[in-house]
């Protein structure tokens, strides 16, 4: 009778341990999956940002042809692009990278505002095509950022929630930073009611 009780107790303990190991593995794998999704989402953001860097020199050259004396605006765009490209060397999702990209977005906004004062520039087909392409890229950056932030939120929830936070601590999962938009673009929610 005593042996039977011992077997039952050992069996119960073994079952609990097995369940615990199973849960730990499953949670760890889920965290890995979520972290990979964050990285993949950042890669999508990065692709669009690089696309934007590629378009800017052409745009600046085109504007120079019509408004060369608007030197400060043009230099601001070039400088912001260089800063953003330099920041791209650091790991994704950092606040510095986001800040640099936001400065570039604002500088581009000023450049397009400038074009309003130059009808010839506005009528230039190359400029119109570049403007459309950049607008398209900005849209894609916006969606990519939304996906990235969504993936970050999911991972952060897992890392900070109990009991998955225990596994996250053991696996050294770090909460990634959000890629926040600047000024009027801040936040993913744009309700249009």
């Amino acid at each position, binding site marked *: 009778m005593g042996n039977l009780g011992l077997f039952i107790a050992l069996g119960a303990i073994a079952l609990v341990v097995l369940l615990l190991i199973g849960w730990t593995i499953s949670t760890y794998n889920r965290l890995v*999956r*979520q972290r990979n*999704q964050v990285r*993949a*989402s950042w890669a*999508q953001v990065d692709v669009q940002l690089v696309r934007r860097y590629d378009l800017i020199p052409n745009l600046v050259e085109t504007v120079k042809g019509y408004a060369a004396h608007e030197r400060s605006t043009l230099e601001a765009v070039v400088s912001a692009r260089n800063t953003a490209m330099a920041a791209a060397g650091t790991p994704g999702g950092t606040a510095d990278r986001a800040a640099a990209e936001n400065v570039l977005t604002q500088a581009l906004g000023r450049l397009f505002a400038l074009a309003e004062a130059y009808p010839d520039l506005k009528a230039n087909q190359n400029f119109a095509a570049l403007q459309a392409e950049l607008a398209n890229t900005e849209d894609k950056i916006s*969606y*990519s950022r*939304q*996906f990235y932030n*969504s*993936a970050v*939120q*999911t991972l952060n929830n897992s890392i900070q929630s109990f009991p998955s936070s225990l596994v996250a601590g053991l696996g050294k999962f770090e909460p990634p930073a959000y890629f926040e938009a600047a000024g009027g673009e801040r936040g*993913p*929610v*744009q*309700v*249009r*009611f």
Partner: protein
Amino acid sequence: MDPRVLEIALVVGAVGLWAACYAALFLVTRPASPRPGPATQELGTESPAVASLLANRWAVTEDAVEATLLDLAARRHVELRQPAADPMQTTVHLRPEADQSGLTAYERRVLDRVGALAVGGVVPVTALTFRDDKQAKRWTKQVRVEIVAEARTKGLSQRRFGKTAVGLLVAAAGVVATVVAAAAIHYNQRVVEEDEAGLVIFAFFFTFIALSAIAGRYPGERDTLDGRVVAARWLGVRDWLRGHEEFADLPPAAATVWDRYLAYGAALGVTRVASSVLDLGMGSRRLVWSSYGGTWYRVRVRYPRFWPKYGRKAFDLITRALLSIGLGLVLVLYGTKPRQILSDAAPARWFDTFEPLARIAGIALLAYGGYKLLRAVIDLATERTITGEVLWVQVWRTARKDDDARPEPVLHYLAVDDGAGDRTTAWALPSELAFCNDGDTVTLRVRRWTRRVLTLKVNERSKRGDFTESTVDHESEDLVATTLGSTMRAVTGVLRAPDVSPATLLTAEEVGHALGMAVRMQDEVPVPGPFRMVTFHTVERNKQVLLLQLAGGRMGAWAWRSNSRGTPLPGIGDGAFANGDRATLRFGETTVVLTLLGKGKGHRQHLPWLLTQAAGRMSA
């Protein structure tokens, strides 16, 4: 071998072989399962509905329609608003200012449906369901074919059985029909003393038409080369969206944030919450949305099934009540009679038990009958008139006029919301009054106790009846017709009988004059299929002398091709030829063939004249 076994083996073997070929073709043409491309957030140019078709192995699922609604919201043709935490409270708001010129046929159909249901430009998202099963099926089918038509136009999808495959199946059906006919001939020779041509012809055409119909049936869609490439890309998008766990929990109103991604997510089956909220299929009849009075609210409807009084005519009820009273009186007054009559035949204790029971049953029947009579009379005297919105109309009881007749509706359930509360019981509507549809505003004269409707007047028709009316352009309609109907049309074109009766083309006098003998026309034997024919017989010995055959549609064209040889006869119909004892005439889509038989064979020189007469009648 037993001849019966031979006949059965011939028929079963031939039909079985054909069925095996069909099954093999079905297996070979099954849609591919493309390997997903790399996970990506890059959307393609295809609409969510077409993406859904491709991602679901070339099958249109309900996801396609739901995704289309979300896509319309993302493109600002409608707005989805969620006023509270529960996504089920989402409402759809029309945006009449949106430009609808770029919408596809099915997108416009979904938008039309929202517009038809909206009251004051608003409709709850859960009120988009249908209330009529047939209407739901028809609407869904139309949307389905429009989606398929678009996918085919882009070269992403094709009919599962192509024209060649269907042509081969129809040809094989002809062979099988011939084998079956041969078995019928064998049976005739064995069993029937005189040859019965009717059985053979019936066996041939029945088999041919049945198998051709199966061959021509719409078998679904399958992949194309381009379709597989695009499907792989969309499966990559699906993997990308699936990787974002948050996506599964987004409500429909999130379309304002996620734009078209939510629509594509729904199309690809990764939006659990949004897809569970949206339902454009058949709705529940027990919890129905009403907009009576201008605001939306839900009404619970009860449908009685076992009430003896429900839907009964007053005469029936009074008759039953009087019968109950009569039976009760008999039991009460004459309950002791059996003892007096049968006292010698049965023991006294039996009557001691029976008499009190009979008295109790009699009193119960009297009370029941009296109550029914009283309520029926009160019901008769207190008819009411109510006005409200029809929530649900459905057949409840059917009856056959005779054993062979199809069951016909006798009573309908009619749920009406008169604005008195959020619960109601359906009325029993005599089927001859069932000319209203859900959404109509009606005035009813009713009897409350039996719930029977006496008269019904439709005050205002609902727009919902227009759901299935097409708003797509003619070109799209043609495309849709082609999508599902091309092969079937080809088959029916082959089988279509000519409209002209052969008996009207030549008279017995004309044939007799041409052949130089007295003839009479045999009555036309009705034959299924694309042929019609009459024969002319000699009056004297009843021998065939001329066979007049007509063939229409595709079969007419084949008949013309195989008979347009010999000496051309210009000026008769659209073309004519004489070839020995046979002459052929083409007029429109109809081909006429005259064949001289027996004693008629010596008079081929008169065939052109007979054709001229026939052509004259056809042009008239």
